[in-house]
């Protein structure tokens, strides 16, 4: 049976005496996954903008 292993939410966040080690690592994990997702989206947007600029430049040249 799955049970919450801590007496309170405070005890959960303290994880006495190891909360200071555990939580920053999970925070870093979220930061890495979020950062890579953000970096991918930015790289994709940048590629689309670059191609759009090239197309516009070509159109201006042709006209």
């Amino acid at each position, binding site marked *: 049976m*799955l*049970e*919450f*292993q*801590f007496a309170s939410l405070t005890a*959960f966040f303290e*994880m*006495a*005496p*190891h*909360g200071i*080690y*555990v939580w*920053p*690592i*999970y925070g*870093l*994990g979220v930061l*890495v*996954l979020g950062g*890579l*997702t953000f970096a*991918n*989206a930015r*790289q*994709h947007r*940048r*590629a*689309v903008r*670059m*191609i*759009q600029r*090239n*197309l516009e430049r070509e159109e201006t040249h042709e006209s």
Partner: protein
Amino acid sequence: MGWRWFHQWGSPRWFYERAGRWQLVCGWLALTLLITGSFWGLALAPVDYQQGNSYRIIYLHVPVAFLAQALYAAMAVCAVVLFVWKMKLADVAMQSIAVMGFAFTALSLISGAVWGKPTWGTYWVWDARLTSMLILAFLYLGVIGLRAAIQDPDQAGKACGILVLVGVVNLPIIKYSVEWWNTLHQPASLKLTEKPAMPASMWVPLLTNILGYYIAAAYLILGSMRAIVLERERRSAWVRELVSRA
């Protein structure tokens, strides 16, 4: 059917059109698994009788350490595909995996060091497992740096492929380091061939997170590959049409 499924991977357009959908599925699946596995590991799994709550770091450390090695092996497979079949997408995959692989290796080293402090009394020892993982991080950095240093993408791909294949020798060293040398790092917590030593209430969330991180890596690699495909294929008619419609 035959080899058609394999040849389809030779078309960047075929990949780009499908990868967006695959990415969406992987993203939501990874998020669900990681939230479930992490909450289970942090709040519902029992406290370890020796390590106390510090052991809860393994729910992140073990999946990312597995992933760091698996991604390097995947990069080596891509290098072989690039050399044998000259498939452009394999080079794109190699470029994407190098960045993700470095990120997960760094996360594995940092989480291992932080777990080591309360468990071993030190953040770092020059133990065979830790050192070979550090070499893996340098190999990833080497691949990223080498690509950045060579302007021609084809030449860069070939050079990176050679470096990746040479570096494969480090993978068995990482795996067997805990058996070949007397290390502070313990043997694998989870093996495919043996029943886990820990109770199910501890290993089920670990397995959930391992699956979650693997799918998250797939999500990230697909996203990065789509962006690289767009950049590399910017002169192709299909990309120009796609962007002008956007």
